[in-house]
């Protein structure tokens, strides 16, 4: 029962904040809702037994990436709002329709799968007692070490690239 309350409550928050992100008029407001959305997702992670990922979600996403967004939003002091200029070729309505259709289809697939007799009916495993941080770390540094190193190279490259972009051109 408790889990159901938590799930539906969090789902409402996540989707609600998501809607606010894409509809807010000011970009700053969007950013704030994005943070709240991420925090709600982090709570979902905790519910799903992924504490480490939840903390990383808050630390890296909410505390790092989104701060970057906020910085950029505040730095680009817009002289005319983007919504002012409208390209006639835009197919916004079609886009929303398609997105809804995709959502409906995915939902249908999941529901069918879940209802299929072969599907395992209940949550398979309860979260590991005492957390799974150690397991994540273990996997990260053994089986996925190469991927880990590649990711670090990617971050380095991104860092260098960003510095190059943002540099004053003189």
């Amino acid at each position, binding site marked *: 029962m408790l889990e159901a309350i938590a799930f539906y409550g969090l789902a409402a928050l996540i989707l609600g904040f998501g809607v606010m992100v894409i509809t807010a008029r000011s970009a700053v407001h969007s950013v704030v809702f994005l943070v709240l959305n991420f925090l709600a997702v982090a709570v*979902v992670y905790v519910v799903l037994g992924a504490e480490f990922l939840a903390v990383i979600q808050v630390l890296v996403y909410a505390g790092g990436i989104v701060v970057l967004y906020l910085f950029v939003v505040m730095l680009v002091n817009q002289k005319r709002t983007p919504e002012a200029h409208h390209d006639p070729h835009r197919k916004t309505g079609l886009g929303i329709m398609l997105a809804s259709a995709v959502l409906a289809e995915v939902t249908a697939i999941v*529901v069918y799968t879940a209802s299929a007799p072969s599907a395992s009916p209940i*949550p398979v495993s309860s979260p590991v007692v005492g957390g799974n941080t150690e397991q994540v770390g273990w996997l990260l540094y053994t089986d996925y070490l190469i991927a880990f190193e590649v990711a670090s190279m990617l*971050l380095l490259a991104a860092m260098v690239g960003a510095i190059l*972009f943002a540099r004053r051109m003189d």
Partner: protein
Amino acid sequence: MHLYPITAYHYLVLAAALFALGATGVMLRRNIIILFMSIELMLNAVNLNLVAFSRLNGHVVGQVFALFIVAVAAAEAVVGLGILLAFYRNKETLNIDEVNLLRG
């Protein structure tokens, strides 16, 4: 599939909804920054999926993948926003419709 008890499939549906929301944002908005944020929403939906699968399979590999997605999202945000700033410096706008130098 019922509303109760909550299974991993519920989370999959939630993730799908979040993904669709992100996609809608990408379609809807013209401010590039908000576009980026919508992409972040979609990435989060993917992460949610991975964590749900990780729960479903009782294995933490999904979480490890989600960690990599976080890293990639960080790189994407950094480079994307860098490009965006450079773009803004040149054109003084953030309208996606004006990013059209390659139009046919």
